[in-house]
């Protein structure tokens, strides 16, 4: 039907256009739609078959894309390992402890459901090394129906899907059509990245605060770059890839850069605002000049992301693990006391996880940041009398490269070894073990099993310690007209009033000089009033003498 109607339209418009052809060629018939890609994967023989597993699809992919598996297996999406270049610390999901679900070790099949591979079930070993262990589809499926099972070490749900099975986004699982997925492949869309990254920490926007399902189809106010009414970017417009490694890291963040900005599409390897916008991005007006004066002090994000968790999805800001394990009549229960702006009730208590607090449209905290993040890994001694920083932000106002950056500060209370004074690994997930916290609600067993899985020394005694964890805010950039107003910070109770290392006009109307000045003016006024009073009492007003 469609080709005929197209042809009809073409003939009709040609007929209409002919008399006008002398004046204008603009109304010439539309050219037939050309495929954007040079390859239609549905026409490729290796993909025209019934696939029965994810690895089978990968095997088909690498018959043509011969180096793709090798590239992918060297990237952090697969290794979950990162050597911090400045501190030398070994980081990555495989090693760090966070204040959310804690650690991967001991909880593998649940956590590695979002691994860009298949079948990583033991953190003490590197990820599976065979070529087909790479999951091409999770990033390249464009059919929209590929997903991964929530607790199956990265494998997709296939028919028949057991009742109660969930996907990585928490939805009820459906049987994935692997052939359809394989034939649809293309460059990653927002959904490919988002299906894992929007759901970090066990739910929508739980972890990051600036990465939520609101970014699948964001309004312009929520994200000016990703909105269809804005630049309509996918994640990879900024997070450019080279050999399957992506620009952008929250272990080593690019905070400032010196070289010239790049035009869209120009080769570059860094995901930063300045990569495209330069370090003096404001218009050449008096106001623009003044705003450009700020860019060597502030990260763009500080003004241009006025709040995080915008777009109607709240983020978790407090998680007290010490309250986990309470039961009612021997059974786990939950409370849903937080109501999101869309009316959805969110957990404020879960027997499995403890107490939560949530925030929507949350104000960031601000700190000097040079991009380098140190982690309180489980081999480090902590001071349990203080709030422990799970990750430590490096930055110095005087170093010339640090900027004031916005952060989500996650407040936590989590388990630690009370004799060795170290954070502990906890075995939380394990439906079939008799030690997993979420099944057995027994902390001593869960910690012991977690420490064993991680191969870490454990004294046998534990307690809970208050923690902070910082999440650099960089997504959900608002349109320019929705950026912070000056007085958000330039006011006595402004957002940065407690930040050292920066002089902020307007924040301190009662400094020493201000008090001296006020006294001077008051003394002058008092003198004048006294003068007037004496003139009145003496009855001589000093009137005109003429």
């Amino acid at each position, binding site marked *: 039907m469609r080709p005929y109607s197209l042809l009809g339209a073409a003939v009709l418009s040609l007929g209409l256009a002919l008399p006008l052809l002398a004046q204008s060629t603009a109304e010439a018939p539309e050219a037939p739609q050309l495929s954007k890609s040079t390859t239609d994967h549905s026409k490729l023989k290796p993909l025209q078959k019934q696939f029965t597993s994810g690895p089978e699809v990968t095997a088909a992919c690498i018959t043509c894309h011969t180096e793709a598996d090798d590239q992918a297996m060297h990237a952090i999406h697969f290794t979950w390992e990162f050597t911090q270049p400045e501190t030398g610390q070994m980081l990555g999901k495989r090693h760090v402890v966070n204040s959310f679900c804690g650690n991967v070790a001991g909880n593998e099949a649940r956590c590695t459901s979002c691994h860009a591979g298949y079948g990583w079930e033991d953190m003490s070993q590197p990820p599976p090394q065979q070529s087909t262990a790479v999951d091409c589809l999770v990033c390249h499926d464009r059919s929209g129906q590929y997903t991964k099972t929530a607790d199956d070490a990265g494998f997709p749900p296939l028919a028949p899907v057991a009742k109660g099975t969930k996907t990585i986004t928490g939805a009820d699982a459906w049987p994935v059509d692997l052939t359809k997925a394989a034939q649809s492949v293309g460059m990653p869309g927002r959904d490919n990245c988002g299906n894992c990254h929007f759901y970090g920490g066990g739910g929508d926007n739980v972890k990051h605060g600036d990465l939520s399902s609101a970014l699948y189809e964001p309004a312009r106010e929520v994200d000016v770059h990703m909105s269809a009414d804005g630049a309509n970017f996918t994640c990879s417009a900024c997070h450019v890839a080279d050999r399957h490694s992506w620009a952008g890291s929250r272990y080593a963040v690019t905070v400032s850069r010196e070289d010239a900005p790049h035009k869209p599409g120009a080769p570059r390897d860094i995901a930063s605002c300045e990569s495209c916008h330069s370090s003096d991005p404001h218009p050449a007006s*008096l*106001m623009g000049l*003044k705003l*450009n*004066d700020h860019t*060597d002090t502030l990260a763009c994000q500080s003004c241009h992301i006025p709040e995080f968790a915008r777009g109607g999805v709240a983020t978790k800001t407090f998680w007290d693990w010490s309250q986990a394990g309470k039961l009612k009549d021997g059974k786990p229960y939950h409370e849903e006391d937080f109501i999101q702006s869309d009316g959805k009730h969110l957990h404020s208590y879960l027997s499995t996880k403890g107490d939560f607090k949530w925030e929507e449209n949350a104000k960031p905290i601000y700190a000097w940041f040079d991009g380098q993040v140190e982690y309180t890994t489980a081999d480090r001694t902590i001071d349990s009398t203080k709030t422990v920083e799970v990750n430590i932000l490096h930055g110095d*106002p*005087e170093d*010339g490269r640090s900027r004031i950056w916005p952060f989500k500060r996650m407040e936590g209370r989590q388990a630690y070894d009370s004799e060795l004074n170290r954070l502990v690994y906890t075995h939380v997930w394990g439906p079939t073990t008799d030690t997993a916290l979420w099944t057995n609600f027994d902390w001593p067993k869960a910690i012991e099993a977690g420490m064993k899985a991680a191969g870490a020394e454990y004294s046998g005694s534990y307690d809970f310690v208050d923690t902070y964890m910082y999440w650099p805010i960089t997504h959900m950039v608002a349109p320019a007209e929705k950026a912070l*107003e*000056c*007085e958000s910070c*330039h*006011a*006595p109770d402004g957002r940065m009033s407690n930040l050292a*290392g*920066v*002089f902020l*006009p*307007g*924040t*301190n*109307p009662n*400094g*020493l*000089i*201000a008090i*001296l*000045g*006020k006294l*001077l*003016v008051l*003394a*002058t*006024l008092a*003198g*004048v009033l006294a*003068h*007037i009073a*004496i*003139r009145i009492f*003496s*009855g*001589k007003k*000093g*009137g*005109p*003498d*003429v």
Partner: protein
Amino acid sequence: MSRRCVKVYPVFERFWHWTQVLLITILLITGMGLHGMHHLLPFGPAVMIHTITALTLLALWIFATFWLFTTGTWKQFIPRIEGMIEVARFYAWGVFRGEKHPYKKLFWRKHNPLQAATYFGLKWFVFPAIWGTGLLYLGYALWEDAIADSSWWLSVVANLHLLAAYVIAAFIIVHVYLLTVGHGFRSHVRPMVTGYDEIELTAEQEAYLETNEPERLRHARATPAE
């Protein structure tokens, strides 16, 4: 000696004075807002108004300095000790006894010694302090990389700017109040509006003006000499 109504403030000087009144008022109000004392204006627009007003005032000052030196008016502002004690004594004592202001405005000297000293201090110290610190404040981005602890130095600049502003505010209070002392508010303000004031002229001065600058004498309003 005769008392004549003479133009003592030419058009430019009056324009200079009243433009300063307007600009300094705007600067004080916006400056207080920027300092966090009130929130009548959003911070951004207040910065813009403050900056544009300050630059306008600076331009005016450049013109005024040029004018002062080319016309020789600068001599009016050189402070002299002579007569200062009498004027000070008058404000502290004589004014309460109904005495007349001891200073007689002269053709070549329209300020009394205290006034001249005050303006000298303002022009040589307070105004340069406020526009010097203001320009450093405004141009912070141009020098911050050149020195260590630039944030601390900026706070010094800002505080000096603030201190100078308070001194100017105190000056304005006294300046306005003193208009009510002696000849009275209206007769003090009138010359700065019309340009004309009654002053004592020597016979030579009178003859000079009548011959060479008759437009500076206003015959109709002249009153008999005392």
